[in-house]
């Protein structure tokens, strides 16, 4: 059996030997290179653009400004959660008359190589009338705030409102009420490979674009629509991809501009974002302010939850529409059963880079808020925070459970699970029962240690469907075509294992083909931890149909009932005894002779998402003089229903934790008051290195398989990330119990802890 085995990855050989083919590695004859000229101002009117001098520059082939694009060009539409109200704030591939963030594309220059393009770019003269910017979501809603999109008439382009029960009434009856403001900073995926594209246009106007990722088929359709071409005349090809994490692969201005330039020039045009450009151009994420009110009784049972959320959208609505704020809202209650809920989210435009999803979108933010609040409730009542969690969990017998909220057009309905179980694992592993003594001993030695917990529910398996086609070739090799894409998560190996399990052949005899619109008929792509759940189920079914067909032929040949036969180790076997009755090598020529097609396809549909869940726990030590944080132990228990490849699942958890740690302590896309991004390089945007990321212990549980798919899987991509910040924040508070330190905002920078410690006197 391949499913459940920690098999080595099929992807790795090429990547380890330098044979990988990332988009920047491709080179075609006559290839030239584009550079995007971006706004240096956060908010300005474009008065004039003079390109004449640059045009005469050595090696320059093409310069484009908004006036060179078709007059009827539409802005880039939303891919997820579209809404007509938001259309007035969409982004055009090049800014027309006004720029709205530092990095807004204003012109494109194509030259024989990048050095020449950059030389000439300095000679494009753009005159701006600088306008006052707004860089804060709460301020942008003030009546006197500068208006970003006059057509929209307001910076508050959207309001999301959810209600269950009656919070106002319920709060009146609660023994205790707590109000708190919490903040999650702007940060993002920051993959090691920046974005890039290489577009070629034939003499017959057929376009080929390399460097697509994530949602290849969707972008294919959109590119055709915006370029006013037939879908058949465009081919999108995925290359190796140096990390996705949400931002990469969405349709950006460059996804229009680079193919457009290639069509104009009839020669291959490459554009590779540089790192400084990436920080300004690629989707940011996460920035939210929460004003929370909770009502609870003396036992820590929480009844009422109210939250007013201010969501910083940046200068435009990009392809995710309202996905992130609506997921924040719908997933905010997490694993808990609150009777009365009222949440309102203000989606506010600011003069900053537009935002989209980043690993655990909405949940990273909401989990920080909720799990801090749980510990605050516990501190208020002087109760064990893990006990407060226990008292509020949705119980297994309440499943399936709906929290009354909805996101992405679906009511949240948790399918199965036992939330207390993962907390129990974490408490036991971290020695919570004996921790107070350990902590007291440490304190006697002058050491400040603390232990914090954070529970979470993830969502995965976003539908509505995914496609797979599985074909067995006469030589016994299997080709599995999938609508998923590879962003480094190992989908190739995962699907090969699933097919291998069905067909009884080694997984390395299966080639997985993805991300090429000429080769794969259709697909929705890899995002929202949907790969194994939806795409894996499609491959499972397609391979299953192929298995049935093979067995039918074998049964006819052997004159035995088909249900007596199975496939195993490259042979047809009697299913009871496992005795080999026919080699696949002998069966395949028979199929070939009879003209039997050994190619099956399946489109797996799913109406509801599935919900993995777990618990993070962090033991930290603080240096009271410097505020420095040292993670002594880190543990994640995660129930994902079923693990196709536990090694890859662990890789997702550990790697996801490192990204969560970045968001918790180090990373921040910080702007100054005039809207300049002041952390726009790796010198000041701090990604955790091997010295900061601790060893992470994981427990992968398979106790509650999803009833919604044949594999029982619930998805592993994001659970490592979403609960890091509250686990560490709660541990810091636990370490400093006698100081009333307000740990309510991210990142948890050491200087902030040190400052707080200096100002606070112990309460005792």
């Amino acid at each position: 059996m391949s499913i459940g085995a920690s098999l080595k990855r099929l992807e790795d050989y090429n990547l380890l030997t330098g044979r990988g083919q990332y988009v920047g590695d491709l080179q075609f004859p006559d290839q030239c290179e584009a550079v995007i000229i971006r706004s240096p101002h956060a908010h300005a009117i474009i008065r004039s653009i003079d390109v004449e001098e640059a045009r005469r520059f050595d090696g320059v082939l093409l310069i484009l400004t908004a006036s060179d694009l078709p007059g009827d060009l539409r802005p880039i539409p939303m891919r997820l959660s579209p809404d007509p109200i938001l259309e007035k704030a969409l982004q055009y591939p090049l800014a027309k008359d006004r720029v709205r963030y530092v990095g807004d594309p204003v012109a494109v220059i194509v030259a024989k190589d990048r050095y020449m393009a950059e030389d000439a770019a300095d000679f494009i003269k753009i005159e701006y009338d600088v306008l006052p910017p707004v860089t804060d979501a709460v301020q942008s809603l003030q009546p006197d705030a500068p208006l970003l999109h006059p057509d929209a008439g307001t910076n508050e382009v959207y309001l999301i409102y959810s209600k269950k029960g009656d919070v106002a009434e319920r709060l009146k009856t609660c023994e205790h009420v707590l109000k708190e403001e919490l903040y999650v900073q702007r940060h993002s995926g920051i993959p090691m490979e920046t974005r890039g594209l290489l577009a070629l246009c034939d003499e017959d106007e057929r376009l080929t674009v390399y460097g697509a990722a994530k949602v290849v088929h969707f972008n294919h359709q959109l590119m055709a629509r915006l370029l006013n071409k037939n879908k058949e005349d465009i081919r999108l090809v995925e290359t190796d991809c140096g990390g996705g994490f949400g931002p990469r692969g969405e349709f950006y201005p460059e996804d229009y501009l680079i193919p457009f330039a290639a069509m104009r020039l009839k020669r291959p045009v490459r554009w590779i974002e540089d790192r400084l450009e990436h920080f300004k151009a690629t989707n940011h994420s996460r920035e939210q302010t929460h004003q929370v009110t909770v009502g609870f009784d003396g036992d820590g049972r929480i009844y009422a939850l109210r939250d007013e959320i201010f969501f910083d959208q940046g200068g435009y609505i990009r392809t995710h529409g309202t996905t992130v704020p609506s997921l924040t809202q719908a997933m905010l209650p997490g694993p808990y059963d609150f009777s009365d809920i009222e949440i309102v989210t203000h989606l506010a435009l600011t003069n900053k880079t537009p935002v989209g999803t980043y690993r655990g979108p909405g949940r990273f933010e909401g989990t920080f808020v909720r799990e801090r609040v749980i510990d605050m409730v516990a501190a208020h009542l002087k109760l064990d925070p893990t006990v407060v969690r226990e008292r509020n969990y949705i119980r297994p017998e309440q499943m399936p459970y709906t929290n009354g909220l909805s996101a992405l057009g679906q009511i949240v309905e948790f399918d199965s699970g036992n939330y207390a179980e993962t907390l129990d694992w974490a408490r036991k592993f971290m020695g919570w029962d004996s921790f107070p003594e350990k902590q007291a001993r440490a304190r006697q030695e002058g050491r400040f240690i603390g232990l914090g917990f954070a529970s979470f529910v993830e969502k995965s398996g976003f539908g509505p469907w995914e496609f797979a086609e599985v074909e067995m070739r006469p030589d016994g090799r299997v080709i599995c075509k999938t609508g998923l894409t590879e962003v480094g998560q190992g989908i190739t190996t995962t699907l090969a294992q699933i097919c291998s399990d069905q067909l009884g052949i080694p997984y390395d005899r299966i080639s997985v083909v993805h991300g090429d619109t000429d080769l794969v008929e259709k697909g929705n792509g890899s995002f929202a931890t949907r790969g194994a759940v939806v795409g894996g189920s499609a491959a499972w079914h397609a391979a299953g149909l192929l298995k049935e067909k093979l067995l039918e032929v074998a049964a006819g040949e052997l004159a035995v009932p088909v249900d007596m036969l199975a496939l195993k180790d490259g042979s047809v076997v009697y299913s009871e005894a496992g005795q080999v009755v026919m080699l696949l090598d002998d069966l395949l020529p028979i199929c070939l002779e009879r003209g039997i097609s050994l190619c099956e396809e399946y489109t797996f549909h799913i109406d509801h998402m599935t919900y993995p869940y777990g618990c993070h726990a962090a033991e930290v030590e603080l240096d009271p003089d410097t505020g420095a944080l040292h993670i002594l132990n880190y543990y994640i228990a995660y129930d994902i229903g079923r693990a196709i490849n536990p090694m890859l699942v662990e890789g997702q958890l550990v790697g996801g934790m490192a990204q969560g740690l970045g968001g918790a302590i180090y990373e921040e896309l910080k702007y100054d008051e005039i809207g300049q991004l002041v952390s726009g390089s790796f010198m000041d945007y701090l990604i955790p290195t091997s010295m900061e990321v601790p060893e992470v212990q994981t427990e992968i549980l398979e106790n509650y398989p999803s009833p919604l798919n044949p594999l029982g899987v619930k998805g592993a991509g994001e659970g490592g990330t979403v609960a890091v910040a509250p686990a560490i924040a709660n541990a810091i508070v636990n370490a400093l119990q006698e100081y009333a330190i307000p740990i309510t905002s991210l990142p948890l920078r050491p200087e902030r802890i040190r400052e707080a410690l200096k100002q606070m006197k112990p309460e005792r």
Partner: protein
Amino acid sequence: MMEKTAESSRLKTITLKVNHKEYTVDVEPRMLLSDVLRDVLRLTGTHVGCEHGVCGACTIMMDERPVRSCLVFGVQADQAEIVTVEGLESENGELHPLQKGFWEKHGLQCGFCTPGMLMTACHLLEHNPDPSREEIREAISGNLCRCTGYQGIVDAVEYAAKEMRERAE
């Protein structure tokens, strides 16, 4: 790739020995070594992640020292002996123990930082055949990885160190 016009006067001829093979090429003095390797010599295993010397993806061995090829001009590498990820395999195609280790221990996901990691780790093991986990972490701390959380990479380097020690015995 350059036209023989005014540009040719700006070109410098350099000779590099890369992975035991000698190359003589004409390059502009301002061309980065990473671009010379990737775009001129077509050795694209060396990756460029930041172009300001922080991420380490472009790390190569130059005259037996790990160097960020995005911070070196091609002309500075004239007469240098360079090893890139393409030079790690033995001549008969056998993977380097580090490559094996990364494969065995899931030391890579997207694989973009991997060539730089391999070159840095290579230098570590040449100088310290039996490093502790802490020493490995310190040695690779100048190479950013966004996927693995480093744990698998540390496991991989430990694995390779053990294999190389056993081989040496």
